[in-house]
């Protein structure tokens, strides 16, 4: 039976291998699916980020441009008011208005007359010369804005706005208003993405930039040069894209965007021209990661969910496989074995024995037909439970003696059939003798007073394959004939078919 058992184990191993193969295929398919999902998800996020960052950059530039436009409109309106006054003495006008600057957002206000005389403080006059501000004034159409410079009066970066106005019956002059650069920085402030949005003013000709907003507050308001702080940082592969973007600015295109990488970060950068600040542009840059960080978090959650789902599915598969295997094993046991004695049932025995005997001419086997003597009397005297006990213990003795090399079966009631994979009749006879001794020790109950002189015996008819029969039915018939003769001769004995007297 052990051999039979080992044959079943090998089937089980094959079955397990096929199960694990299926599991690996399943995991591979899941893995490929997850990779495809991630690739398409990332690509979607990338495209979405690029579009969104470009849109946000454009919105920020528009916001700044609108704010600057509002300031220039205010300057133009103020110039119109002064023009309407048609003042003939600019010094008097300057003295009056320069005293009334409290609570205004500008730092200073002054005038330039038709002869380019400047009405301003001595410090401002120095700055006009130092920063060649008259050149900017000449660009006014009707407004112009200077490049930022550091004001002596307030010690901060400022810019000056020039607006045309008329005085003294049509003479053309300029009104100028100087604002702290902080005004533009305030315009640049955004509630969201404050830390990630970098905003500069950029002069196309010089590549100079002034930071208006960014994560590093120390650099806000300071000068830099885009060759050093942007172009040299950008990955080599994106240099051409940046240069093309810059060329568009140099050629006067009103706005353009570019996407480039600095290390592992992707940036989208947009510029837009500034009305009246000739040659200057608003540049906004946002790293894609600032937008995708929330989506990345969602991506992580989805990944976690998928991983848990996958692990749960695998565990479910394995548990289901184990349960199925166990159920199969139980069902197989029930269909092969006799439930009382755990030896094979008749159907299973016939199947196994036929299969074994069909192996070929060299196959050796002996078939034993055993019958417990007077079993009915055991049942009658000691009850069915005692009968069952006898059968169980007798089967156990059979397994112990023949289990290594035989198929053992309960054929019905007290009948057992054994196919021994050996034609060595001497050896088989020794085993049967041994069985007789073991049977004698089997008792229907534990109480000696109760079973008294009870001794279990059996009768056995044996036949040898292929000599006594070259197929199972014939072999069984031969063994049965031998058994019949043993029973006829008084039982408690075993006899071989080939020893029987010839039938006349």
């Amino acid at each position, binding site marked *: 039976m052990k051999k039979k058992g080992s044959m079943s184990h090998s089937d089980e191993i094959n079955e397990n291998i096929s199960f694990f193969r299926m599991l690996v295929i399943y995991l591979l398919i899941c893995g490929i699916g997850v990779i495809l999902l991630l690739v398409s998800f990332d690509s979607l996020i990338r495209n979405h980020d690029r579009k969104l960052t470009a849109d946000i950059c454009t919105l920020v530039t528009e916001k700044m441009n609108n704010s600057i436009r509002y300031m220039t409109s205010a300057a133009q309106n103020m110039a119109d008011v002064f023009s309407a006054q048609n003042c003939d003495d600019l010094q008097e006008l300057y003295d009056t208005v320069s005293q009334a600057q409290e609570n205004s957002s500008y730092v200073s206000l002054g005038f330039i007359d038709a002869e380019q005389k400047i009405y301003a403080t001595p*410090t401002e006059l120095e700055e006009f010369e*130092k920063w060649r501000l008259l050149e900017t004034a000449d660009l006014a159409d009707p407004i112009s804005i200077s*490049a930022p*410079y*550091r*004001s*002596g*009066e*307030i*010690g*901060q970066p400022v810019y000056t706005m020039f607006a045309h106005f008329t005085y003294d019956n049509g003479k053309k002059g300029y009104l100028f208003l100087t604002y702290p650069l902080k005004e533009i920085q305030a315009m640049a402030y955004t509630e969201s993405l404050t830390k990630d949005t970098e905003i500069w003013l950029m*002069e196309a*000709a*010089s*590549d*100079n930039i002034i930071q208006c907003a960014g994560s590093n*507050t*120390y*650099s806000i*308001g*300071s*000068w*830099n*040069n885009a*060759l*050093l*702080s942007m*172009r*040299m940082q950008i990955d080599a592969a994106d240099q051409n894209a940046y240069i093309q973007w810059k060329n568009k600015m140099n050629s006067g295109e009103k706005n353009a965007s570019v996407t480039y990488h600095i290390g592992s970060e992707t940036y989208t950068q947009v510029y837009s021209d500034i009305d009246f600040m000739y040659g200057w542009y608003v540049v906004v840059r946002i790293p894609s990661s600032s937008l995708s960080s929330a989506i990345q978090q969602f991506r992580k959650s989805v990944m976690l969910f998928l991983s848990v789902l996958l692990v749960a599915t695998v565990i479910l598969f394995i548990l289901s496989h184990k349960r199925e295997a166990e159920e199969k094993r139980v069902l197989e046991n029930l269909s092969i074995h006799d439930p009382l004695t755990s030896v094979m049932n008749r159907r299973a025995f016939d199947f196994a024995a036929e299969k074994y005997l069909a192996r070929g001419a060299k196959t050796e086997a002996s078939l034993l037909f055993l019958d417990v003597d007077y079993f009915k009397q055991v049942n009658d005297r000691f009850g069915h439970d005692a009968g069952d006990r006898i059968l169980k213990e007798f089967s156990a003795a059979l397994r112990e003696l023949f289990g290594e090399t035989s198929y053992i079966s309960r054929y019905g009631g007290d009948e057992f059939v054994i196919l021994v994979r050996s034609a060595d009749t001497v050896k088989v006879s020794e085993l049967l003798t041994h069985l007789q001794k073991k049977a004698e020790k089997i008792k229907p109950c534990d109480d000696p007073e109760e079973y008294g002189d009870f001794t279990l015996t059996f009768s056995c008819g044996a036949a040898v394959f292929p000599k006594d029969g070259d197929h199972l039915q014939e072999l069984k018939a031969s063994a049965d004939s031998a058994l019949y003769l043993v029973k006829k001769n008084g039982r408690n004995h075993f006899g071989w078919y080939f020893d029987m007297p010839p039938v006349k």
Partner: protein
Amino acid sequence: MKRILAGLFSIVLCGLTTSCQTHENAQTERSAPDFMPLTEIVDGRDNVYLIVKVLENSSYWDVIIEGARDAGNALGCNVYYSGSYVETDWASHERLLGEASAAGADAIVLAPDDSVNLSGKIDEIYQEGIPLVLIDTIANTDNYDVCYMTDNLMAGQEAAKEMLSLLEKQGTDTSAPAQVGIQVGATSSLTIIERLAGFFQYWSKYAPPSWEVIPDIKCNEGDTEKALVCAEELLEYPDLKGVFGANNGSTVGFAKVIREQERKDIAVVGFDYSEEIAGLIMDDDYTVSTILQKQYDMGYQGVETALSLKDGEEMPVKFIDTGVIVVDQDTIGQEDVQEVLSHN
């Protein structure tokens, strides 16, 4: 033999560099010392406290301290001084400001290590009514009386102006291609960046269209050996006619390589005064200018203005550009240039 000497020189240089680095590392762990007298201390005189950025091993800051001492001696006040050992140690400055206030300072002259982080403490000192003069670096607050510093943007413009002048002097064809190479010592130094921005601002406006600045701006990261390599690389450009060093190290690098290669066709504009640049200026075969800051004036005027403020005077302006001077073959003999050079 030359190789052996070069090898030995490299080893010595490495040793010195390592020694300097170790020293600097050690310095980063050192907090600023207590205030020390810079002038004779006499009871009854005004007490001015000077706080500098770099207390040791900096000729630039030594000149500022010298200016403050001269002002203290000339104007009859007690000057105490201290400062951080490295420019990033703003916490030491915060502590020193508190100590100066607690010691009853009549006025404070401060070169802030950090424009942002020190603003709160600067506000506090100013609100206590102590006159506060900033030098070298401005702070991100309005609560100070006045700041004396070099307007580096303007200094950069001056450098570009000088470069165009030298190229013209060399007879460079304004209609033919010509290139100018730039080397900087750091990409994060506001001083250097503003000089660079000033240079580009002037250049973009006034340089002939066929002349260009090479977009590949070299950065030597403060390494003297790398400064030489950067200079050598720039000198290989075929149309190179001029080079601009935005700080002392870069200028020294250019001066050494140009002298070694005898590139008399290259105009040099640099910053600060070193033995190497002085050697080129003295040699008529080369076309060279260097731009000097007036840091002595920052120290002197800082103390002088602090005393005036203490006496109730009000400053009409918040920011005073102490300016720069251009030193070249033509100006080196001038009295004002010699005056500035005497402090370098």
